[in-house]
Structure formats: structure tokens, C-alpha cells
């Protein structure tokens, strides 16, 4: 065991600090994970930084999102530790240690030769020497530091430095020509991208240093926290959550079934099974309890008052369409429009939301929601189809803009349908405040506060509960 014997003094404490840092960012690092990390570090050589990092990553973080945080934090933490140590020992580097704040790095030491720097970069990219690339990226940032100061946008800075170094991929940006070695001043796009990644990492790192905090880079928890007010959410993130949800929609029935002991014996299957045991019915076979497969009618408010939640709602709609075959969906603002066909036709979420945005034609004059009219039109369209096995779900904030809520029409819908749910994207605190009339509807249906994925899950459980 190479590590345990030669582990430097105070290293364990450092590792615990690092774990604390991870925990502060919301990565669940347990004590057992730390023990694993130490055990892993005892097994690998320490000379290669990548092995060190990968070993830590494999033991401490358990999801791609956490891995991203780990990368950022790892950089910052060990970079800082090294810097602090260097300061203490008064070690000085000519290149300014990649710190964009210390621009005197280039003027202080020997003058940097741009040509030499460029050649070195080209060399490193061609040889795929990661650590050399990283060092050179720091050097380049230090060299171009003064000019990159202003922009503050990482992508812009990266491109500026790349252009400054005169790095170009071959014309057409295509594949590296594999038969002959590429001409001397041309590089594969892949290689340049890799160098750009190092540049970006170094820049991001110095930015992290400057601001002293992690950039907000956690799509999932961001999504969890800030659905109603946040900007347009990352569609991929919504989708990932919804995909998990879909899965739960499919398995929920099973879990609920286990908790209820009431079941019917399937006599035929029991008798057949008893043949194996000489006619003695040793094993009782039960009739499977099928999870309730409701016929769904979903009404989704797409007016401006719920803009921020509507992406969320549409993706819920999208997911539901994947899971339930018998389903009709409607969107509404002032009037109602059936969009079942759109979902049947388009598989990609982007296309769906575009199609709905373009030709649903639900806003009439004012663009304000008119619930009374929506109910009447809905009832007109589906009155004959509604039956006790149908479930109606309304996604909306119940803000009528002062118009007649027509709760009596809504009551008729509820009476005809089996179950009716209301998902309100507003926190319960705001319900019935201002022009919100959710109370007059809540008398007839179950209303849920729903603007995060966890709240949605709660609702899904209610929806797939085997029976009332």
C-alpha cells in the first residue's frame, strides 16, 4: 500500500475539509464514502493527478450532476490549497499561476514570446498532453489577461484567446485526415476544443476565485426551487425529471397494491398450481390487481399569468401522453382548444410547444383567462364522452381576472367525471387572494399546490392510487 505509509501530515484533515465543501454544495457525502475514498487512495499511485481525482470522484459522488459540482469544487479547493501553500513557502511562478487578477505575471518575469507559446500549445494539442495543455492554458490566460478582463463572459474570453493564439481547425471543420499527418499549422477541431475546455476551466476557476462562490450551475435543484418565477427552464432538465416521473407512474400501482391485503383468489390458477404438489393447493394464486388506468382529460392554462409554469405544465402533459393511451388534452386562455392531435403527431417536446404556441388559437381579444367560458366550451365538446371512469385534471391558477367563475358549470363537469383534480402553480399562501377563485372550485374537486417536481410526485401518487 503506497499511500497510507507516505500520506502527508494533515492530509486527512484536508480531505475532510473537502468533503465539508461538497456537503455545503448539497452533495451527500457520507462517512462511509469518506472511508471508501481513503481506502481507494491507498490503492493508487499519487503521481498522476487524474488518478487521484478519479478515485475521489468514484467514491464520493454518485450522479452526473454531483460530478459537475465535484469538478468545480475540486479545482477550486486544491487550487486554493496549492496557492496558499505556495504563498507560505514563498514560491513564485513566472506565469502568475493562472490567476487572471495578477496581470503582472507577464511583465514581471521574462517577456513571453507569443510565437513560442503558440508553438507549445500546438505541440501539446497534437500530442494530447492534458497536463501540458492545462499549464499552457494558464499561461495563455495570464498573457491575454488584461484584455480578457472586461468581458466577463467565459465563452467570449475563450474565443478571444483562441483567436489571439491563432489556433484554427482545418478548413471545413471536418475530420482529421487520418492517412497523412495533418499539415503543421492545422489542428483537429477536437483537439482545439479540448484546449478550449482547459481555457474555460482555468477562466471559470479564476472567476470562482474572484467572486468567492460557485457559479449557479445546478439545474435540478434550481428547477426544484424556482419553477414559478425563474426564467425559461432548461428543457432537458425538465425532461429528465419527467422521465423519472413517467417511470413512477408505471410502478406506482404495484407499491400501493402491496399495502392492501385484500385480494381475490384465482381458483383456476390455484388448482393448476396444485397439480405440482399432488393436488394439495399449497400455493394460493391471486388475481392480479390491475392499477387503475384512468381515462384522462387534461386542461392546461397557457395564459400569461402562468407563463413561468407553463413549460412545466406542458412537459407534464407531454409525459402523461407517453404514459396514458386514453387521454385528451386541451389548452385554454379565453377559449379552449384540443391539442391531443399535436401530441399524437409530434414526439419531440420542442415541436409540441412550438405547435401549441403557434396554432392553438386560444387567446381571443384580451388574452386574459376566462374560466366561465372555458368550462362551457369544454362541457360542450366532451359532455357526451365524460363518464365515471374518466379523470379530469385542470392545470391553472384559477385567476379569473374578475370574470364570472361559473362554478356551477364546473360542478356539472365534476359530477359527470369520476375524479377531478386541480393543480395550481401558485403557493397555497396566495390562493383566494386577489382575483384567485380557487375556493369556489375546490368545493368540488381536490386541489393541489403544484409547481415543483416533488409536489408533482405527490399528486401522481394520488392519481394512480388503485381505488377511491
Amino acid at each position, binding site marked *: 500500500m503506497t499511500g497510507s505509509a507516505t500520506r502527508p501530515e494533515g492530509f486527512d484533515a484536508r480531505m475532510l475539509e473537502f468533503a465539508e465543501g461538497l456537503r455545503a454544495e448539497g452533495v*451527500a457525502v*457520507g462517512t*462511509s*464514502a469518506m472511508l*471508501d475514498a481513503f*481506502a*481507494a487512495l491507498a*490503492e*493508487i*499511485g499519487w503521481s498522476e493527478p*487524474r*488518478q487521484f481525482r*478519479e*478515485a475521489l*470522484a*468514484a*467514491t464520493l*459522488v*454518485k*450522479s*452526473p450532476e454531483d*460530478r459537475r459540482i465535484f469538478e468545480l469544487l475540486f479545482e477550486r479547493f486544491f487550487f486554493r490549497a496549492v496557492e496558499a501553500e505556495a504563498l507560505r513557502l514563498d514560491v513564485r511562478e513566472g506565469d502568475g499561476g493562472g490567476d487572471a487578477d495578477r496581470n503582472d505575471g507577464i511583465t514581471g518575469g521574462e517577456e513571453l514570446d507569443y510565437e513560442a507559446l503558440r508553438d507549445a500549445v500546438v505541440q501539446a494539442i497534437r500530442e*494530447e498532453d492534458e497536463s501540458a495543455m492545462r499549464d499552457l492554458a494558464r499561461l495563455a490566460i495570464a498573457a491575454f489577461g488584461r484584455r480578457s478582463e472586461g468581458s466577463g463572459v467565459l465563452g467570449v474570453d475563450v474565443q478571444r484567446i483562441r483567436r489571439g493564439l491563432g489556433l484554427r481547425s482545418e478548413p*471545413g*471543420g*471536418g*475530420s*482529421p*485526415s*487520418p*492517412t497523412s499527418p495533418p499539415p503543421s499549422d492545422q489542428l*483537429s477541431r*477536437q483537439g482545439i476544443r479540448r484546449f478550449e475546455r482547459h481555457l474555460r476551466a482555468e477562466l471559470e476557476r479564476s472567476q470562482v476565485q474572484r467572486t468567492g462562490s460557485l457559479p449557479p450551475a445546478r439545474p435540478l435543484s434550481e428547477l426544484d426551487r424556482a419553477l414559478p418565477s425563474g426564467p425559461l427552464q432548461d428543457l432537458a432538465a425538465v425532461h429528465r425529471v419527467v*422521465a*423519472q416521473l413517467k*417511470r*413512477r407512474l*408505471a*410502478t406506482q400501482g*404495484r*407499491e400501493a397494491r402491496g399495502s392492501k391485503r385484500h385480494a381475490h383468489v384465482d381458483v383456476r390458477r390455484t388448482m393448476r398450481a396444485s397439480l*405440482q*404438489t*399432488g393436488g394439495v393447493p*399449497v400455493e394460493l394464486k391471486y388475481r392480479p390487481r390491475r392499477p387503475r388506468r384512468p381515462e384522462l382529460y387534461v386542461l392546461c392554462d397557457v395564459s400569461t399569468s402562468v407563463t413561468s409554469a407553463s413549460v412545466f405544465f406542458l412537459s407534464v402533459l407531454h409525459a402523461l401522453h407517453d404514459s396514458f393511451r386514453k387521454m385528451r388534452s386541451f389548452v385554454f386562455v379565453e377559449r379552449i382548444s384540443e391539442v391531443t392531435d399535436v401530441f399524437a403527431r409530434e*414526439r*419531440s417536446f*420542442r415541436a409540441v410547444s412550438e405547435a401549441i404556441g403557434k396554432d392553438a388559437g386560444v387567446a381571443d381579444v384580451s388574452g386574459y383567462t376566462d374560466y366561465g367560458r372555458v368550462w362551457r366550451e369544454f362541457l360542450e365538446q366532451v359532455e357526451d364522452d365524460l363518464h365515471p371512469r374518466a379523470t379530469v385534471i385542470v392545470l391553472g391558477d384559477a385567476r379569473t381576472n374578475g370574470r364570472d367563475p361559473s362554478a356551477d358549470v364546473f360542478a356539472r363537469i365534476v359530477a359527470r367525471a369520476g375524479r377531478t383534480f386541480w393543480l395550481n402553480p401558485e403557493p397555497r399562501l396566495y390562493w383566494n387572494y386577489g382575483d384567485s377563485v380557487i375556493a369556489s372550485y375546490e368545493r368540488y374537486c381536490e386541489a393541489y399546490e403544484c409547481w415543483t417536481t416533488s409536489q408533482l410526485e405527490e399528486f401522481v401518487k394520488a392519481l394512480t392510487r388503485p381505488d377511491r
Partner: protein
Amino acid sequence: MSVEPASVEEVAAGLHSVGYLPAQSTALVAYLAVRLGKPVLVEGPAGVGKTELAKALAKYLERELVRLQCYEGLDEAKALYEWNYRKQLLRIQAEADGTGWSAVQDDIFGHEFLLERPLLHAIASDSPVVLLIDEIDKTDQEFEAMLLELLSDFQITIPELGRVEARTHPVVLLTSNNTRELTEALKRRCLYLWLDYPETQHELAIVRLHVPELSETLSAKLVEVVRLVRELDLKKPPSVAESIDWARALLLLGADDLDETTFRSTLSIIVKHRTDLDTVAERVGVKLSGVL
């Protein structure tokens, strides 16, 4: 007897020698799994070689591969062990009169009447094995909970027999396509490995390894095109396995260049959704004429 790797480089070389080109992190985690005896949870998109890794590891370590394919509704009887009712019943019926109850009872709950399922087999095996629990995300949470005892202590408790402890230490790999969030308890017991699509050079090496007959120029083009296709927003991006299939198909067709017509006629090998086909034909078709 089985191989005991002494360094990460050895694992990397070993996996390479059995036809699997590991990324650096893959080799490292595989090495740690063998050395620390911890299970590994491998996640990543479909077709990046999660299952292949287990197979290659078994081959390299010269161990038997025990595979448990998970699906919804998988239960203990199919994963762990089952009592052989029929045999037990026969035993009882064949019993001579006057044998005491306890004698029979002791008898019919013995190893002879136990049907070994993959997990028990992996544990009770005389020589160490590689245990692959494939697509763990397809099972229910209850099944995950059942695995915990096995994964942390390498033992299985059979009520009638008591504890069955592992005679040898298996290398355990669990794969998941990330369709469901696995429980923290399970994740905590595992090393974690995220496998993503390989980088172009790496993928080229993989394709060359599997289809060495295809010319290097063509392989490079193929890999580049696959990368272009992956960058599009597809329902199902082409996997590594599909790149290899495509390379094999091109070889079979005797194609010596990847031009517009070849591309279109073989497109269905890497893209498998109607809408995706349209997207690719539309977007990559244009780019292709520039690239190739």
C-alpha cells in the same frame, strides 16, 4: 486461477487485450473494484459499453460471469434462491412411516433442495466470479433493498438455513440507464462510474479494434459522422455499439467511401426513430456534402 491486477495500467492493458478499450476513469474504477472489493454502479446512456465492461472484466480476470438481468417484478425467487417444492414433496411422500417429524424437516430444508439463482450462485461459487446485475433501474425499490445485504456484506440470509456467506469475493457491477433515481442506500455502497460517449479519437480506436478490416480513412469518417449525429437533438443518439454495427455493415457492402448515397441507404443502422431519421437526413445531409 484468476488474475490479480497490481496497477491501473495493468487493468487498462488487460481490458484492451480482451477487446475492450477503457477510458482512464473506467480502468481506474475497475481496478479499485477488484482491490477494494466494492460493487461498482455504472451509469450512462444506452450502448456505451456498460454491459460489455462486465463481460470484458470477467474475461480479463479469468472469472466466470454471472449475470442477473433485471426487469419489473423480479423477485427473490428468481434472483436469490428458491426451494424445490416438487423435490421436497417427493421426499415427504417417499418417506417411510415412523420417521420423526423433525428428521424430515431437517432433511427437506437442506442444500439438496435449494435451487440456486444467480445471486446465490455468485456468492456460493468456489472460484471468484464477476457478478453483473444489469439494468438495476428496471426493478422496484423493494428489490434494491433486498440487494443491500448482498452488496455490503456479501452474504444472503435464508431463514431455514441461516446465513450463507461468500466463500469468495465476487466483483460486482450494477448497470443503470438512469431511468429512475436509485436509492441513496444502494449508491452509498457502490463506487460510481459514469460512462459517456467516448471522444472521437477513443471511439475511432474502438471501431478500429472491432472492425480492423475497414480502412482507417473510412473509419475516421464514420466516427466523425456519428459525432455530428450525436450533436443533434435526437430521441436516441447512436451508441458505440451502433457505430461498430455501421462499420461492419459498410465492410459487408464493400463501401470504400462514405458518400451521400451510402450514408442515406445505411442511415437506419445508427438512427432508429422516424422523426430522428428526418432530422438527421435534413441536418447532417447538408453538412455531409461539406465534410466528405
